[in-house]
């Protein structure tokens, strides 16, 4: 079959909602786009452990500490599901990790913002995980089978992440005036970066059209962002907190909230590596990788030795 026919066949499968599986024929660009997107997603989960892991030793109670440990462990798990999904496309795990450590691969910019106090852990669960869920629920229906299946697992687990964050916000918003002020401050700092998580406007987004045609994505950046604003505003009202946007108001005609413009200069600056914590995050990942090197080597040596130990016995029997 010519590659033109193969491509037409591929697109007709996508149009008929037939999932693409690892060994099926796919256009090179589809494979490359997915490897890039899935590995960036995996890197985001792994780097995403850092801002919260930072607070495990300082959680205000044993209950909160257990919850936070479980959540950070989940993020590691999500990273691993996603790396595995990328590997089904022929990517090599070690190459992907090296790209992250070399600063060549991107991860979600949100994790380049610092967690300054405990309220930030509430805001992250509520807003950052909330925004991630919007995107990830859409991706449970993505056209590539292993990615979709990883997303189903992740979404099941992610729901607890958002709820525990909102619970922290409820506790703080109903606490002392100082605690309520901390909750408000944290909403002020995390609101705009959370909206930025959905990426550039549709008109500015370079990969969007093709990703929609291939059904890797099913909703545009702006659609998802609007959906997030619409569900989150009432949640902020319940907390008695104010979203830091003077242009935010319900638009009866549209049936949606109108909201102000994102500071795109800040967005691109953080993407390009100049956010508050870009260097710190990468340094922490490199340190973790280097500190773990001897463990990886020792495990391989141990496995090789065990294989070796098996050999003389079996060859003796054969003789």
């Amino acid at each position, binding site marked *: 079959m010519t590659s033109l026919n193969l491509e037409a066949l591929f697109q007709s499968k996508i149009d008929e909602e037939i999932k693409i599986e690892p060994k*099926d024929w796919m256009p090179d660009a589809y494979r490359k786009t997915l490897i890039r997107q899935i590995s960036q997603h995996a890197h985001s989960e792994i780097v995403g452990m850092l801002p919260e892991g930072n607070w495990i030793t300082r959680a205000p109670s044993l209950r909160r500490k257990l919850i936070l440990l479980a959540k950070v*462990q989940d993020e590691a798990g999500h990273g691993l599901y996603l790396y595995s999904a990328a590997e089904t496309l022929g990517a090599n795990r070690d190459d992907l990790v090296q790209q992250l450590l070399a600063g060549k691969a991107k991860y979600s910019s949100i994790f380049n913002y610092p967690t300054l106090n405990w309220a930030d852990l509430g805001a992250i669960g509520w807003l950052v995980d909330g925004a991630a869920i919007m995107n990830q629920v859409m991706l449970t229906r993505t056209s590539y089978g292993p990615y979709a299946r*990883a997303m189903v697992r992740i979404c099941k*687990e992610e729901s607890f992440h958002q709820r525990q964050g909102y619970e922290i916000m409820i506790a703080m918003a109903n606490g002392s005036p100082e605690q309520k002020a901390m909750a408000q401050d944290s909403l002020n700092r995390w609101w705009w970066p959370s909206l930025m998580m959905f990426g550039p406007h549709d008109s500015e987004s370079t990969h969007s059209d093709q990703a929609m045609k291939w059904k890797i994505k099913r909703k545009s950046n702006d659609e998802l962002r609007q959906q997030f604003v619409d569900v989150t505003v009432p949640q902020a009202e319940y907390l008695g907190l104010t979203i830091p946007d003077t242009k935010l108001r319900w638009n009866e005609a549209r049936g949606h909230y109108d909201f102000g413009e994102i500071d795109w200069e800040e967005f691109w600056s953080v993407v390009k590596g100049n956010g508050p914590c870009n260097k710190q995050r990468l340094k922490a990942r490199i340190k973790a990788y280097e500190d773990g090197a001897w463990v990886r080597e020792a495990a391989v040596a141990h*496995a090789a030795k065990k294989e070796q130990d098996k050999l003389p016995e079996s060859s003796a029997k054969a003789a």
Partner: protein
Amino acid sequence: MKNEWPLWEVFIRSKSGLSHKHVGSLHASDAEMAVENARDLYTRRNEGVSIWVVASKDITASDPDDSDPLFEPAKDKIYRHPTFYEVPNEVTHM
């Protein structure tokens, strides 16, 4: 890379009475570690009562490009399904 851990496919029995089902893959230096890692990665919420791990390199799969000729022989044998046969209304328990 020299020290890269091999890839393993993980199968989980979610409860007694059900088959093991493929859930994903992971890296581990040997089979024993693969089982331990599978416990941490795929059963954090009581998803399983039993784990199988198989080295990915040991799996032989059919080729999707050959799936038409491979599965074609079963396609026209509708007489293998009970719905192919007519049972008179008077006849019950069949």
